[in-house]
């Protein structure tokens, strides 16, 4: 269901994690399918295929989207960031480090999507309160953690970048 059969290809130009790509996608192909199967980026996860769980979340022009229900063909000219594009080098981002400290990772399948949403939140609201964080996470289901350690990690990350 990731890539539906189709008759026509569309050529798209996409900047993914600061690298420019140009490639063909099928008419009904999802952004998630394109990222995973054409670019080999398996960080964004396949899960519900319905835009309901958030495991496939990536940032498009800075905004979080459910890439499993986004048409790849409509993405031409956009800038996409995936979980692979967060930590630039050996060092994890402040947010990722906070996830380690707060044991906010369990099975880890929701983690890439959760990180993308919280990255967008911290970009927009550098000092979010707990309810901002919980609201921002409304589209990300985590069946393992019950969310608390994720929320605490996000609060801690916000505090660590505050002057």
């Amino acid at each position: 269901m990731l890539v539906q059969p189709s008759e026509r290809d569309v050529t798209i130009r996409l900047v993914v994690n600061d690298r420019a790509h140009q490639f063909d996608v099928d008419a009904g192909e999802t952004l998630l399918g394109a990222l995973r199967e054409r670019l080999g980026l398996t960080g964004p996860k396949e899960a519900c295929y319905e835009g309901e769980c958030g495991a496939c979340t990536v940032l498009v022009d800075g905004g979080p989207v459910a890439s499993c229900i986004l048409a790849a063909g409509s993405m031409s000219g956009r800038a996409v960031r995936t979980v692979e594009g967060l930590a630039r080098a050996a060092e994890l981002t402040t947010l990722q480090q906070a996830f380690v400290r707060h044991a906010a990772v369990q099975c880890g399948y929701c983690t890439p999507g959760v990180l993308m949403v919280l990255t967008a939140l911290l970009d927009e609201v550098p000092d979010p309160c707990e309810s901002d964080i919980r609201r921002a996470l409304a589209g990300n289901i985590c069946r393992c953690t019950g969310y608390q350690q994720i929320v605490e990690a996000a609060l801690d990350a916000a505090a660590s970048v505050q002057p």
Partner: protein
Amino acid sequence: MQFCRVRSVAEAVDELSRWGTEGRILAGGTDVMPQYLRGEQSPAALIDISGIDGLQGISEVGGVTSIGALVTMRRLATASLVQLRYPALAQAAALVGAWQTQTVATLGGNICSAAATADTLPALLVADAQLMLVSKSGRRRVSLEELLEGPGVTALRPTELLRAVEVEPLGERGAEGYVKVSRRSAMDLAVVGLALRLSVTPSGVISGVRIALCGGARAAHRVPTAESLLLGSQLSGDIDVFGAVGEELARAVGPAVSPEAHYRRRVLRGLFDRLARRCTAQIPGASG
């Protein structure tokens, strides 16, 4: 299936007239893509209008606000103009799905899908929304009330494109709001969505009232019988009229044919009171 990426309104209406009922407009795609992926829809063409700049933007001309069809839920929820002049719309947009949905879901999509549960529609109805439609044969303007014919059914012609929505701002001594009842804190469709806009005279008489509902068996709709109960009431002394309005709304959603319909009726009784109190508390001197 063919993917048609159009760059202008002119190109879009060309493609629409070419494909007719075989084409589906793709804006945010939050309805279209899941339906396609589940195999419920197999259009011959997806007409991608997301790149048309002319359908973006919120502008104000002569006291009327025009919202482009591609304006996203996130933009509606966060734009200060919308929050200030159309708070019910901002509140409704913030309750559509989650952030991931709001990033891409468009106002035009919410209107044209005309789902019975579409959160923005009651908010638009209380703002007397007028729709600017365009096709190869010309332009026309219809009110949202006229456009909505049933759940998922609109008076939109297959060759027509929704360009923009014009809404009437909230007056000086007015208040409005949107409340939604759904199963969880977010993500779920409205079991009941209720929008209210009130205007009040300096002496505290309700001089204007619009009430609209979504979530029932019908498309979003206004409830004139409930509105008329409230019109002319004195705000400071007559609060218990809210209970009567709630009862009327419960009647207006139709017979309790299912447990869900039964629940909707029960909720509406108290829900209107809650929303009305929230609104009147915002009107200076009105809450006594």
